[in-house]
């Protein structure tokens, strides 16, 4: 073999080897495999696996096709997967995307827009809880997300402590919540558990209070973060610790799970923001048999009734949507899968496996026989979507950053730089909206 021939052979082998490193997705028709990207469930991993197995078997029986579930650990993992799939045009056929991430996913233009035919394939819009459709797309003609599960936020109350303090019903306004918390605070006992150090909780309070007062933070392409309503929301949120003193000072270091753990010790009246997924932790602590969910207040701070323009936002519209990739060769199969997992029985099975509420209206209705779930179901129905804009991720980040940078002041008992931090947040939010395309 000549030297030149040998070189050519080596080069060919290398190129072939490198080409072999690339995988191939896709396929379609009968006997195909559908790839589904879904969030890992760390609380109930065994039950979640069993649900996946059951769905795969049902899907095989219905269509002859297989389902391959791929799990992601965090929203960032999911975003990375979306990015690489969008760029390469290959990847999962179906994505379970968090509601607040849906606007971002929509803005990539990489998912199938749902026309009447597509909605028909998944069983029609009527089968879903109406509120859950609120974040499927920017408007009714541009929807990409099929509601999959609902994770509305609620409060949880220690019924024993509330009864001892003479409180018969959970608070329905933020002022009432503060007053209840003051009554409950005494001798190593606190009225409220709040996760100030959490990277996802704080903005939900601020958005909720502001929306209830008539400011949803985004008006078209204008950010309205530097606004007296928003300032009052932050002051209320910080005031629980600094002026009302109804929160454990250690809460400046708490994430949501730490706040739940503190509440589960049985010495706190209310935990201000949680979902059904915390039930296990609440039942394994000193609160066992002594807790109940309650709707978050829907009347803004400083008011006894919602002002004109205010919305009854009991929670952000939280949960997961199912999106079908437009590069998928198996879109019909993907819609059949979406229909299967959003049908009543599959939704109830998923609730039992993972603790997430159904987005299917009939399935949610059937759960209302459990009195503990009634407030959660109400919260699902009264959830309001955050502004549907690709800029929302940045706005959320800016709102959270106000709290992150204020924590040292918060620990000292006051936040004197709130105005300048709100100005920074306004600038960041407006800049993100200006870039939105």
């Amino acid at each position, binding site marked *: 073999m000549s030297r030149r021939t040998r070189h050519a052979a080596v080069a060919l082998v290398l190129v072939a080897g490198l080409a072999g490193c690339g995988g191939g997705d896709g396929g379609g028709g009968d006997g195909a495999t559908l790839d589904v990207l879904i969030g890992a469930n760390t609380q109930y991993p065994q039950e979640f696996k069993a649900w996946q197995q059951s769905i795969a078997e049902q899907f095989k029986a219905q269509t002859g096709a297989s389902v391959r579930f791929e799990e992601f650990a965090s929203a960032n993992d999911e975003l990375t997967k979306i990015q690489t799939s969008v760029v390469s045009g290959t990847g999962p056929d179906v994505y379970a995307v968090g509601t607040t991430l849906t606007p971002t996913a929509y803005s*990539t233009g990489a998912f199938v827009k749902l026309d009447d035919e597509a909605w028909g394939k998944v069983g029609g819009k009527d089968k879903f809880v109406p509120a859950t459709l609120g974040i499927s797309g920017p408007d009714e003609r541009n929807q990409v997300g099929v509601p999959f599960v609902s994770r509305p936020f609620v409060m949880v109350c220690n019924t024993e402590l509330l009864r001892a303090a003479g409180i018969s019903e959970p608070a329905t306004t933020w002022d009432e919540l503060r007053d209840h918390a003051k009554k409950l605070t005494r001798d190593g006992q606190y009225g409220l558990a709040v996760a100030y150090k959490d990277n996802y909780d704080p903005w939900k309070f601020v958005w909720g209070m502001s929306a209830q007062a008539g400011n949803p933070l985004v008006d078209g392409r204008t950010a309205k973060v530097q606004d007296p309503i928003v300032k009052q929301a932050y002051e209320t949120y910080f005031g629980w610790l600094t002026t009302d003193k109804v929160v454990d000072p250690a809460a400046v270091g708490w994430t949501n799970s*730490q706040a739940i753990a503190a509440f589960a010790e049985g010495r706190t009246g209310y935990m201000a923001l949680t979902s059904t997924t915390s039930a296990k932790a609440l039942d394994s602590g000193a609160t066992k048999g002594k807790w109940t969910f309650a709707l978050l207040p829907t009347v803004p701070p400083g008011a006894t009734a919602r002002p004109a323009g205010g919305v009854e936002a009991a929670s952000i519209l939280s949960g997961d949507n199912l999106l079908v990739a437009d590069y998928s060769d198996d879109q019909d199969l993907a819609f059949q899968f979406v229909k299967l997992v959003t049908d009543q029985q599959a939704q109830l099975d998923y609730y039992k496996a993972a603790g997430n509420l159904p987005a299917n209206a009939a399935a949610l209705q059937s759960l209302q026989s459990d009195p503990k779930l009634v407030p959660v179901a109400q919260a699902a129905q009264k959830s309001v979507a955050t502004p549907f804009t690709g800029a929302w991720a940045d706005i959320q*980040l800016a709102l959270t950053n106000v709290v992150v*940078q204020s924590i040292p002041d918060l620990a000292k008992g006051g936040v004197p730089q709130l105005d300048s931090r709100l100005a920074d947040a306004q600038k960041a939010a407006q800049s993100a909206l200006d*870039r939105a*395309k």
Partner: protein
Amino acid sequence: MAKREPRRDLWLLTPGGLLMTLIIVVPLLLAFYLSLIDLDQYTLRRWLDAPFAGLDNFAEAFGSGLPHAIGISVSFAVLSTVATVPFGIAAALATQNAYRGRGLVRALFLVPYVLPSFVVATVWRTMLQPDGIVNTVLATVNIDGGLWLSGPKSYWTLVLVEIWAAWPFLYLMALAGLQSVDSEVYEASAIDGAGWWPKLTRVVLPYLRGPVLLACLLATLNHINNFTLPYVLFGAPAPDDVNVMPMIVYVTSFQSLRFGLSAAMAIVSLLLIAIPLFVYLRALRLDVHEEGGRR
């Protein structure tokens, strides 16, 4: 008659060259290209058609938090390195001579280094909570620990935890340097009647200069690039005092989804790291292969 130089089969470098190209050159060129375009969530799908932004991303990077992040990163990295040197050398000296239990001591010294950064950060984050064990212990001696994970003190938390996790690297390099000292040198100094201090400062430490300086360079680069530790300790968005370069690049890329801007920040970071590396390698001529190749 001069001996004929054997023919070198340079084509054998092809696999390594191809891999280097794929793993280093292509991503680097790609990152540079991304830094020049307006790539975000809206243009990601057709990234080759994304508008050309020229140096706008670099201008925006310098106009935003990047200079602050560079300052924090460089000072944090240099401080951490300087602080680990005495610990590393002292530990290496303490374990150089054989004694009963030396193997166990050496193994214990390596514990912080072999623990994954994620674990280290999680453990420290738990201990440094406002009501965590550190503040509880400090309270017993009437010291208010305050906030370790927020505000100005978070910077010192980052430095301290990094020192705890990284000093064994200096120890390993110093130990390797010590073991390369010829026994004759010790014997000669003993015959000359040198005490422990002259022996340390005039015999041992000069031998350690090369390995320790190299360790300092590598450690500083590791500190500057450390993402896991600040991310797990403080979360994102991070307090301003610990908003180091990897954090700002991460947030820009994966939370704000501005890939062009984050690529510009990453290029600036790379240049920042490359300058001292280049200067150091040239100054110390660590590239011994070139020297070895001379005849």
